C-alpha cells in the first residue's frame, strides 16, 4: 500500500537523507572541500590568463568542477545505501519508486547547488572577468540550478542503477560524462553569455530548462525498470557468470 502523494513521499525520503547528513556533515564537508580544491587547482592553472581568455575559461572551470563534484556526491549518496543494504529496504517499502528517485535527486541537487555557493564566489574572487556573476545573482542562481538539475537528473538514475546492481563505481563516470556533456555544454554556453552580457542568455537558459524537462521525465520513467526490472535477465547474468 502506498501512503501519501509522490511529492510528500519524496520529501520524507529527502528529509531523512538530510537529517542523516546533518548528523555527520560528511557529504557537505567532503564535497565542499573538494570544490575548494578543484577551484584552487583551476585558479593556479589559469591565473595568468588575460580578461578575454578568462571569459572563455571560467564557464569550463565552473561546469567541470560541477561534473567532478557531482560524480563524487552521487557515488557517496548511494554508497551509504549500499553499505547499510538499505536500498533493498527502500525498494520494498510502501513508497512509489519514483519518490525514491526524486528524494535522492533533490538531495544531490541541494549538495551541488551548495557547492556552487563556494565555486561561484570563489571564481568571482579569483577572476575579475567573473564579476557579472555577482552583479546578476538571480540569473546566476537560475543558471546554476538548471545546469545542476540536468546533471543530477541523469546522474541519480545511473548511480542508483549501479548501486542496486552492485556495479563498479568507475562505470558511473564512464556513463555520466558522455550523457551529461550536451547539458553541460549548453550550461557552458549560457555561462559565457552571462559573462559577456549576451542577449541570447535567456534563450540558452530556456534550452537548458527544456533539456532538464526531457532528462527528468525520462529518468523518472526509467527508474523503476532500471532498479528492479520485470525480467529474469538479471538472474540469468548473475548466475551465468562463471561459464566464461
Amino acid at each position: 500500500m502506498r501512503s501519501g502523494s509522490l511529492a510528500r513521499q519524496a520529501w520524507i525520503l529527502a528529509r531523512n537523507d538530510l537529517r542523516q547528513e546533518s548528523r555527520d556533515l560528511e557529504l557537505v564537508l567532503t564535497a565542499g572541500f573538494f570544490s575548494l580544491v578543484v577551484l584552487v587547482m583551476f585558479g593556479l592553472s589559469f591565473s595568468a590568463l588575460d580578461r578575454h581568455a578568462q571569459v572563455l575559461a571560467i564557464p569550463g572551470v565552473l561546469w567541470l568542477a560541477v561534473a567532478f563534484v557531482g560524480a563524487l556526491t552521487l557515488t557517496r549518496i548511494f554508497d551509504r545505501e549500499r553499505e547499510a543494504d538499505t536500498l533493498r529496504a527502500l525498494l520494498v517499502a510502501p513508497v512509489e519508486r519514483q519518490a525514491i528517485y526524486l528524494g535522492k535527486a533533490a538531495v544531490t541537487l541541494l549538495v551541488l547547488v551548495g557547492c556552487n555557493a563556494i565555486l561561484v564566489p570563489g571564481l568571482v574572487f579569483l577572476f575579475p572577468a567573473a564579476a557579472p556573476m555577482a552583479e546578476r545573482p538571480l540569473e546566476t542562481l537560475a543558471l546554476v540550478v538548471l545546469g545542476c538539475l540536468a546533471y543530477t537528473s541523469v546522474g541519480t538514475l545511473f548511480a542508483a542503477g549501479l548501486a542496486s546492481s552492485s556495479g563498479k563505481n568507475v562505470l558511473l563516470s564512464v556513463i555520466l560524462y558522455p550523457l551529461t556533456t550536451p547539458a553541460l555544454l549548453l550550461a557552458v554556453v549560457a555561462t559565457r553569455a552571462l559573462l559577456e552580457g549576451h542577449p541570447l542568455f535567456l534563450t540558452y537558459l530556456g534550452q537548458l530548462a527544456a533539456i532538464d524537462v526531457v532528462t527528468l521525465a525520462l529518468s523518472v520513467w526509467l527508474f523503476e525498470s532500471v532498479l528492479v526490472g520485470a525480467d529474469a535477465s538479471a538472474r540469468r547474468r548473475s548466475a551465468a557468470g562463471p561459464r566464461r
Partner: protein
Amino acid sequence: MARLLPTVFLIVAALVFPYSVDRIFLHTPIEREMGTAQKIFYFHVPLAWLMMAFAVTSGIAAVVQLRRASVRAEATSLAAAELVLLTGLGVLITGPIWGHATWGHAWTWDARQVTTGLLWLVFAAYVLVRRYGAAGSDRLAAALAIFGAVDVPIIYYAVRIWNTTHPGNRVVATLPAEMWNSLWPALIALTLVSVALLLVRLRQELTDIALDEAWILFNERDGHEQQHS
C-alpha cells in the same frame, strides 16, 4: 531462410558497391564549390544516417527489453549499439577528411561534430557497461541506450539550435538529381552490409544467451542432484 539472409545481403552489397563507386567517381559531376573532396559525401551521409538509425533501433529495442523482458530485444539493442560504434567510426573519420578539404580544419568544434562524437561516446559507454558491468547492469545499459536514442534528435536539430559551420540539414534535400541518384547505390550497399552484420551479431548474442540459460539449468539440476544424494 533467415540464416541465409546475412549472406544474401553481403552478396548483393558486393555487387552494388563497385557500381556505386563507379557511378560516384566516373558518372557524377564534380561539385562546383567543394571539388573532388565532395565525393566523400556519398559515404559520409549514408554512414551518418545509418549511425542514427542504429542508435534509434538500439534505444527502441532497449525500451522493449525493459518493458517486456525480451531476450530478442536485448540482443537487438546490443547488436545495434555495436553498429553505432562501427558506423560512427566511419562518420568520425570521413567527416574530418571532408572538413579539412572544405573548411581547412579537420575538427572545428561544430555543434553537429560534437554531438555526433558524444553519441559515439554514449554507445561506447553502453558497450563498456555491457562488457564489464555486474549482474543487473544490462538494465542500466538499456537506459543508457534510451538516453542515446533521445540524443539523436538533438544531433539533428543541433544545426538549428546552435550557430554552426556544418552544412545545413537542407543540403541533402536540395541536391541535384544526378547527385541524388549516386547517393542511393552507396546507401543501399552500406545498409545491406550493416544489416548483415546486425543479423550476424544478433544470432551470436542469442546463442550466447541460450548458452547462459543452459548453464544455469545445468547448475540447478546439479545442485538438486547433490542435495538428494
